[in-house]
């Protein structure tokens, strides 16, 4: 045996350039819309311009006669075969769930719903012909706002009899994790502090950069579906479950996917209709949405009314929190739409020790596009509420907002800590992250400047915003999901194939869309197996290659999928060890595996794991009774969530004359556990921050009174540009997660969850002395200006 040079440099923790970039940066990529197949036809959708209507007639004759048209499809044509957009998470056993057909048959419940589709030679001809389909609608009264939906005056689905699909409650008294919140509030009203607020989580649009696209090839033994999705495995399962096509006859491929942020965590009408169309015409069919279609018909995010009651002692120790939500699910209960507000239930108490807690969400249907997961999904809403409330409490007590947090948070000696909501946080160190953030931020100096500006009556005021957040990542332990009535498990699968040439294929069930799995997974396996980073290929997003997987969402890929990779790699080592002992004629107990090589302790004898892979190929010299393979597979079910946390500090300048806000400084110190690739982590943090900041300052989906989306293009739905962002300063403290081998916690959503309240707290802090304690998001110059104007007139008795 030749000795293999030991690899000692660790890949984990190294800022490796991403493998993905070679193709992405040079334009040599495989987006779904790039796919061209022989004889491929194109699909265009006819969408409802009405928010609520009955479809009484569809005249397709003119469209059928149009140039290049191969077929015109209506809901009635495919009613029996089209499948259904499923709800995977009925949050209560009595949840009211309206049937959600991909193509409407007779009832339209929101603008943009598909009532017909055109199959034509080119996409342009299909779109032209779509204009010729004459649909007769009988318009119905529409309910758009969640609060208005509650009293059932106007029903989004008249046949359902109510707009409320479910009311879900978590009560610390009921589950034994705390006292009765109403008692705490009553007590505080007598001899303490009660903060009661209404906050609004505006509706947002995920607005991934790649419009969704689906190609279906029905020719051949299997139907192959390429789709721009976060969830190829879930899509395959639900197609089989709702269309009756055997799962084994469906192959779903998510090739390069251009962003998702939860927005592609859905099985969409467009996917089902493209499949139905391809099966009908028996040719490959492609559908690629336009941006305006994407903004109205890909699911939306957030949209909650939050009524919050916080009880505290006079000195600011929180004794109870009551959360009453009204969550707008839109026209249907989407894939996990009803569960998104529920996910917040464990997070409103955040990093704090509360005596009592009750969370209730009323999930309502409206005649608006359906709402589902958007980066953070339930946790940003919760974090926003509690971090805003802690600032209000600090004002009521008359102390610094950092002090009130410190007074209430779990100290690092107290882990593991079971919260009032019933979660057990395994690790964390809020003191360390906060101390470091304060230092980098220059907290005290900025407070001095803030006071100076106030004293000088400077038209530009300065505010400081704080957000000490935590979140639950790594979705999820299957038994927990089961207890919540979720329709799937939370495990993840990985396999490792040791190729005879010494190269390694890693197959993962998580399906990335920008997170850099190919790089990070290579780093993990490189360290675990001692194989060079460059020799590792990560395969994903194809159900024929990675047959088992639950895909990418909820910051789960690394924490759950990465652990599965670790376990598969460890199995490879275990299997190889048996062979190494045989080849080296040594006892397994005498072997040590270091840097990719099994060595006999105390000798220079050894064999590399790559050589064993080659030996498996020939199997000429293999131990008796042992299968000739060192490949391995692992399926991992997490034992707990992971709980990243961090302290974010934001300084905002507010021009009190125009209402314009300018970010001056933003510092975050996040504890996300062990970092695999700092380059990727920084990208996730910064990208997340900007999405959260965008909620605070710029983004909102706006409808007119008829339910038409006014912000239906990138001209009107204003994503931030590079000139709108500053250089955020990001650092990390580390308290490794105790529940997975690598100690990772997840980072995909942290920035988004933390930054929104930090920004709003800062703006409110800048103008609080004018008598303002809240401004509705997004904090446009006009809203800030109005708040200042209204506060001023209230103070002087002027009428506006």
């Amino acid at each position, binding site marked *: 045996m030749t000795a293999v040079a030991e690899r000692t440099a660790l890949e984990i923790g190294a800022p490796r350039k991403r493998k993905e970039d070679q193709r992405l940066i040079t334009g040599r990529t495989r987006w779904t819309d790039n796919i061209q197949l022989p004889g491929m036809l194109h699909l265009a959708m006819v969408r409802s311009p009405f928010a609520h209507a009955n479809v009484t007639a569809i005249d397709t004759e003119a469209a059928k006669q149009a140039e290049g048209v191969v077929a015109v499809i209506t809901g009635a044509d495919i009613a029996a075969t089209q499948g259904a957009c499923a709800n995977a998470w009925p949050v209560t056993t009595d949840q009211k769930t309206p049937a959600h057909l991909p193509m409407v048959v007779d009832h339209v419940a929101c603008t943009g719903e598909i009532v017909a589709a055109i199959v034509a030679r080119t996409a342009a001809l299909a779109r*032209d012909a779509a204009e010729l389909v004459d649909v007769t609608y009988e318009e119905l009264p529409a309910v758009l706002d969640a609060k208005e939906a509650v009293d059932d005056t106007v029903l989004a689905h008249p046949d359902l009899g109510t707009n409320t699909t479910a009311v879900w409650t978590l009560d610390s008294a009921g589950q034994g994790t705390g006292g009765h919140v109403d008692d705490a509030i009553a007590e505080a009203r007598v001899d303490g502090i009660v903060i009661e607020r209404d906050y609004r989580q505006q509706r947002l649009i995920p607005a991934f*950069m790649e*419009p969704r696209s689906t190609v279906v090839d029905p020719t051949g033994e299997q139907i192959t579906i390429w789709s721009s999705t976060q969830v190829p495995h879930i899509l395959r399962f639900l197609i089989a479950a709702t269309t009756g096509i055997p799962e084994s006859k469906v192959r779903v491929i998510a090739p390069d996917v251009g962003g998702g942020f939860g927005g592609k965590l859905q099985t969409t009408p467009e996917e089902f209709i493209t499949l139905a169309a391809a099966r009908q015409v028996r040719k490959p069919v492609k559908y690629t949405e336009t941006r305006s279609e994407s903004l109205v018909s890909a699911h939306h995010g957030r949209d909650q009314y939050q009524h919050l009651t916080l009880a505290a002692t006079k000195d600011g120790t929180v004794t109870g929190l009551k959360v009453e939500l009204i969550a707008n699910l839109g026209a249907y209960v989407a894939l996990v739409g009803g569960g998104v507000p529920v996910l917040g239930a464990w997070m409103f108490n955040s990093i704090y020790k509360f005596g009592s807690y009750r969370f209730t969400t009323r999930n309502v249907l409206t005649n608006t596009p359906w709402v589902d997961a958007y980066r953070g999904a339930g946790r940003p809403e919760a974090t926003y509420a509690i971090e805003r409330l802690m600032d209000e409490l600090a004002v009521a007590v008359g102390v610094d907002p950092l002090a009130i947090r410190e007074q209430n948070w779990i100290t690092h000696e107290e882990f593991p800590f079971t919260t009032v909501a019933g979660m057990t946080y395994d690790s964390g160190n809020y003191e360390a992250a906060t101390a470091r953030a304060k230092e980098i931020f220059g907290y005290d100096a900025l407070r001095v400047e803030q006071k100076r500006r106030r004293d000088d009556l400077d038209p530009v005021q300065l505010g400081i915003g704080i957000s000490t957040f935590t979140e639950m990542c790594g979705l999820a332990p299957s038994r927990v999901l089961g207890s919540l009535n979720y329709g799937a498990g939370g495990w993840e699968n990985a396999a490792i194939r040791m190729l005879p040439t010494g190269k390694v294929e890693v197959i993962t069930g998580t399906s990335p869309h920008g997170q850099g799995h190919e790089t990070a997974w290579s780093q993990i396996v490189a360290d675990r197996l001692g194989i060079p980073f460059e020799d590792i290929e990560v395969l994903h997003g194809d159900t024929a290659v990675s047959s088992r997987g639950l895909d990418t969402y909820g910051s789960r890929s690394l924490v759950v999928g990465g652990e599965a990779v670790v376990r598969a790699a460890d199995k490879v080592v275990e299997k190889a060890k048996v062979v190494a002992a045989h080849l080296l004629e040594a006892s397994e107990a005498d072997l040590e595996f270091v840097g990719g090589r099994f060595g006999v302790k105390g000798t220079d004898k050894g064999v590399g794991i790559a050589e064993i892979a080659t030996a498996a190929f020939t199997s000429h010299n293999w131990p008796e009774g042992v299968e000739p393979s060192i490949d391995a597979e692992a399926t991992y079910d997490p034992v707990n969530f992971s709980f990243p946390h961090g302290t974010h500090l934001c300084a905002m300048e507010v021009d009190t004359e*125009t209402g314009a806000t300018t970010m001056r400084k933003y510092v975050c110190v996040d504890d996300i556990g062990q970092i695999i690739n700092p380059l990727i982590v920084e990208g996730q943090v*910064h990208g997340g921050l*900007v999405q959260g900041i965008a909620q605070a300052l710029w983004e909102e989906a706006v409808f007119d009174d008829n339910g038409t989306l006014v912000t239906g293009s990138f001209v009107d739905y204003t994503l931030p540009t590079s000139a*709108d962002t500053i250089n955020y300063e990001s650092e990390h403290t580390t308290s490794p997660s105790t529940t997975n081998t690598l100690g990772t916690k997840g980072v995909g959503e942290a920035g988004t969850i933390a930054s929104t309240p930090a920004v709003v707290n800062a703006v409110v802090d800048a103008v609080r002395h004018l008598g303002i304690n809240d401004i509705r998001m997004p904090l446009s110059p006009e809203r800030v200006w109005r708040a200042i104007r209204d506060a001023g007139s209230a103070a002087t008795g002027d009428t506006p």
Partner: protein
Amino acid sequence: MLAPTITVNGSAGTLSGVDPSTTALDWLRSRGLTGAKEGCAEGECGACSIMVARPGDDGGTRWTAINACLVPAASLDGGEVVTAEGLGSPQSLHPVQHEMAVRGGSQCGYCTPGFICSMAAEYYRPDRMPVASADEHDHELDHEHGPNGFDLHSLSGNLCRCTGYRPIRDAAYALGEPDADDPFAGRCLAAPPALTSTRQEGPTGVYVRPTSLAAALDLYAAHPQAVLVAGSTDWGVEVNIRGARAPFAIGIDRLPELRTLDVGEDVIEIGAALTLSEIERRLDGRVPLLAKLFPQFASRLIRNGATIGGNLGTGSPIGDTPPALLALEAVIVLASTDGERDVPLADYFTGYRQTVKQPGELIRAIRVPLPLSGTTAFHKIAKRRFDDISSVAVGFALDVADGIVSRARIGLGGVAATPIRALATEAALEGQPWTADVARAAAAVLRQEGTPMDDHRASAAYRTATLGTALLKLHAETATPQEVGA
């Protein structure tokens, strides 16, 4: 006539058989160059950015990033295009691609080739100079320029949803200078692609690009319903979003008579087919009011394509140039086969998207009379700092002599069906001392001008208030200390 031919990444491609309403983006993608993509089809996202060889300022060539989704492929006839695929390969990354990789500038990668092209064009900008003695602290505060002279506005037309832009900015600011043997830098030293006359016919219509104004006017006279295409930012949106297919389009973007800029004794004449980027560069701050306007006009990517004539030609009430040009008392030079006539911009707009322009008439130039007023400002309220439609825009041009406002010209956009002059406010200022009291009184008048509307961008009340605040800010910034006290 030969079929139009475009040099893409160094090799020639023909447009034979391509419909004239085909965008450059669709044509490139049909050739397998799928790095550029359709992210929005209206010039907002920049996923379609490519680099084209355009005339430089000194006889050379300048790489210019444009939105491929907005231009007819035929308009690139005789031109040279470079895409992300042509800049580098996985084995041999371009310096811009290398920096993007090492800084983590790409996540999902969908927008990345567009960023690469916008960034590469800025990398090759001939007047990009490292900041000489950048004070470390000052530099940190100027987020919009790198120590290498990189202007972040060159990326303002590219959207990224993944990175938060920090890694992209880091990559941009880390770029060095092109190597001596860099082929793209070398290309800049040679003459730009020659102007060729183009005719492209297809099932949906005809695109014709003449090489002289006379030929263009003859064509327009013969086809008065023709769509004039210059920067084609409007054409592209019509084609992509509204499915328009112009039966007859006349390309006027490269007519030499429309591409001059002359600074005379009494007037500055700006050719209508100059892009806003070219005007910004050539004026180089000579007209401060326009210098304040340009950075707020859409994005650099759009300004690289959009022409000033096109912006006025559409007659939009919310175009960004009219408020500034009204304050400058600009005059529009209209040309037809009957000759030329001058129309003051204030008389040019007649209604919503309507102007005095007659069939067969095109805008040849815009004249700005000299001398310029000494006190100017441009103020725009939008949801986003840059690259956004204005809710309301105002241009101020005041002459203040011996503390007295001798002359006031104020242009307003977004407060009526057409851009208007704030005549009552002008009257309230003229002859008055430039004092806080006068500014306050005039601001009250300004708030009454026009009838702004309510929409999701801003309420009428806010638009109105903003106008007044803009005037007060102008006073606060320009008044001498004793005037402030007065």
